């Protein structure tokens, strides 16, 4: 697998990714609704290939505070997946989940683990769709969560994409319950896993 760059990937691959994002986010929405015991809707996900410089701006500036959940992937493919949610949205989800109305700046330890669980369920649902669509075995690792500036969180997947090129691929998903929750998925397969995903999808 030499000469794979994101820029060269076909429109077809983009469509597949979009569809994957759609199904994954759909599963994630269902999981989220079950967890929250309320109705959750979702807009059609946007798949974007962005320059590193554009990423932070897209999320409202590099200093926007976000919650980032990051998991490693093992199995037939290796790499990592990240789910990002703006802090207010994260706060909203946690409050709803715990049946409280707190507006504190910091998340408590319990809120932190609730948020980690939300991230785990959402990324798990996404990875499940990837796995069933490709017939590849995918095991997620234990998730880690951090609440920090968007730029700092995004540096982690950006660096991994940076080994490959100068852009990164982002799947933006909007969830709605009574408010709009902007979420972002970033899937970062290791270099040799790209080929495996593509051929599993019949594109290589």
């Amino acid at each position, binding site marked *: 697998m030499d000469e794979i760059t994101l820029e060269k990937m076909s429109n077809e691959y983009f469509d597949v990714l979009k569809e994957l994002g759609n199904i994954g986010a759909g599963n994630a929405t269902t999981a989220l609704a079950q967890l929250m015991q309320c109705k959750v809707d979702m807009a059609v996900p946007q798949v974007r290939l962005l320059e590193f410089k554009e990423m932070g701006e897209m999320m409202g500036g590099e200093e926007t505070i976000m919650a980032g959940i990051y998991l490693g992937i093992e199995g037939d493919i290796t790499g990592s997946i990240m789910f990002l949610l703006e802090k207010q949205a994260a706060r909203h989800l946690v409050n709803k989940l715990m049946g409280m109305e707190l507006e504190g700046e910091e998340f408590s330890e319990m809120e932190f683990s609730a948020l980690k669980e939300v991230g785990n369920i959402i990324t798990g649902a996404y990875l499940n769709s990837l796995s069933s669509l490709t017939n590849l075995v995918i095991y997620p690792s234990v998730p880690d969560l951090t609440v920090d500036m968007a730029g700092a969180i995004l*540096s982690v997947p950006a660096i991994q994409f940076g080994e490959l090129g100068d852009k990164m691929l982002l799947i933006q998903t909007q969830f709605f319950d009574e408010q709009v929750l902007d979420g972002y998925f970033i899937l970062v397969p290791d270099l040799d896993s790209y080929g495996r995903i593509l051929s599993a999808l019949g594109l290589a």
Partner: protein
Amino acid sequence: MGNLIKVGMADLNVCVSPDSITTLGLGSCVGIAIRDPVTKIGGLAHIMLPDSTSIRNNTNIPKFADTGIEELVKQVVAKGANRGRLVAKIAGGAQMFSFQSKNDMVRVGERNVQATKTKLAQLKIPILAEDTGKNYGRTVIFYPETGDFVIRAVGKPESVI
């Protein structure tokens, strides 16, 4: 008060007093500020990866510690800084997530800091101060007038190194 020049990820720029120069939300990346204290000409680079020679697709000069620092030095000297008087301050290189992985990409923050120090030592540019490592993001602002390197992090008081 001069203008505030912004440097993005995998980017660099130069700056002359009274202007200042900033990069927002450094995570595992490293921000390298250099300055000639006499002419008060400085510059800031935001590098993402330690080594351009270990990657095939390496045409983006400011992305790597080795090529990025070389280019930064070249540009401040072109602007009128004295090569022999340059001093540096560095920040960033955090490990944002702590899950165990055999993948050494996780330790990339640490490797970025190491590569930055190696390159600066090789160019004989002394590091006057640093705020690196740990597990949180940093916004930095560099003032070539004073050499102050202001560091902001979420939920922490602002510091100057």
